């Protein structure tokens, strides 16, 4: 049975459109679990929460190297699929959408072999949220960063660029056997 070993807690307390979590992926573990909760926007316009990776030099990887496939599960409408290759982030890996408190999100991301420089990094993710005054949704997705390099961290970013968030917690764990 695997065990979760606590690595890092990131508390979001000020208005921002990006959050970088650095130096959390090391040679100590092959697999990592990222748990997020309570990320809500400053304003009333809802926004998707995406993910990028951070390389061993501390730089956010913003190149068109991300592939993903998402199932959007909507409580009020038909489900839909969103898939793409060569994108600049993992779309909605943190949240299908989030909004102003009391609306918010919760989710988990599993990251496989990020630190190993000879391997590409793969992720799986799932999240639940409430937004837009009446929308409850979920999402399940898979993603891959199509460039073999050592990854040591990640970035949370809102997709619009001008719809910042100001609350929430991100927890990072290593998965050990």
């Amino acid at each position, binding site marked *: *049975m*695997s*065990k*979760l*070993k*606590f690595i890092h*807690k990131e508390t979001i307390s000020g208005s921002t459109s990006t959050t970088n979590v650095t130096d959390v992926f090391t040679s100590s573990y092959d697999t990592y679990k990222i*748990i997020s*909760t*309570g990320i*809500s926007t400053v304003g009333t316009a809802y926004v998707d929460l995406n993910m990028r990776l951070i390389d061993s030099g501390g730089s956010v990887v913003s190149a068109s190297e991300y592939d993903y496939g998402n*199932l959007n*599960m*909507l*409580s*009020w*409408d*038909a*489900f839909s699929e969103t898939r793409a290759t060569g994108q600049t982030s993992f779309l909605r890996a943190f949240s299908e959408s989030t909004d102003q*408190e*009391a*609306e*918010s*999100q*919760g*989710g*988990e991301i599993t990251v496989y072999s990020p630190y190993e420089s000879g391997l590409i990094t793969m992720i799986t993710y*799932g*999240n*639940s*949220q*409430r937004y837009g005054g*009446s929308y*409850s*949704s*979920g*999402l*399940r997705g898979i993603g891959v960063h199509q460039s073999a390099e050592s990854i040591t961290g990640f970035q949370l970013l809102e997709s619009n660029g001008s719809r910042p968030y100001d609350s929430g*917690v991100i*927890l990072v*764990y290593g998965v*050990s056997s």
Partner: protein
Amino acid sequence: MSGSLVLIDSEILTGTSASVTLTGISTTYNIYLCEVNAVPTTDDKNFYVRVTKGGTAQTDSEYDVASLGLRTDASFVDDSWTNSDTFGQWSAIGNGNEGIKLQMWLSNFQNAKYSTITASSVEINATANLFGYVGNYTHTVESASDGLQFYLESSDTFVVGSEFKLYGLKK
């Protein structure tokens, strides 16, 4: 998964029970994990979950669900609805050596935001087919929730040995 998981509440049934309630969610942790391994006494019973506030199960019509049912005997099914009075999702659970295994990640229970759950389950249903859900569940009330209640269709009971556990995740 242990290590960073702290057991908050648990029930391992020594007698049959029509419902089980786990409580103890507070601001001590940001995230909680609930695991269920349960079997109904009677075959072909639906399994339901409600949130609790102050230890009392909420029966309001504030439960939204969006989930995908995966199964071996037919096409996958999109299941979603709004404003129900329960997270009534897990259908036709088999008895005997069948039953349901359920894992739920609980977010925003400890604060005044909407309580949300990201869950995965697997069951053998009453027709002996493998069935599972990946689902997302929201109780649309802006106040803290302190636990979950589990119960079955038609006041059926859970068998002896059914397990219900609630963990906090160390931060």
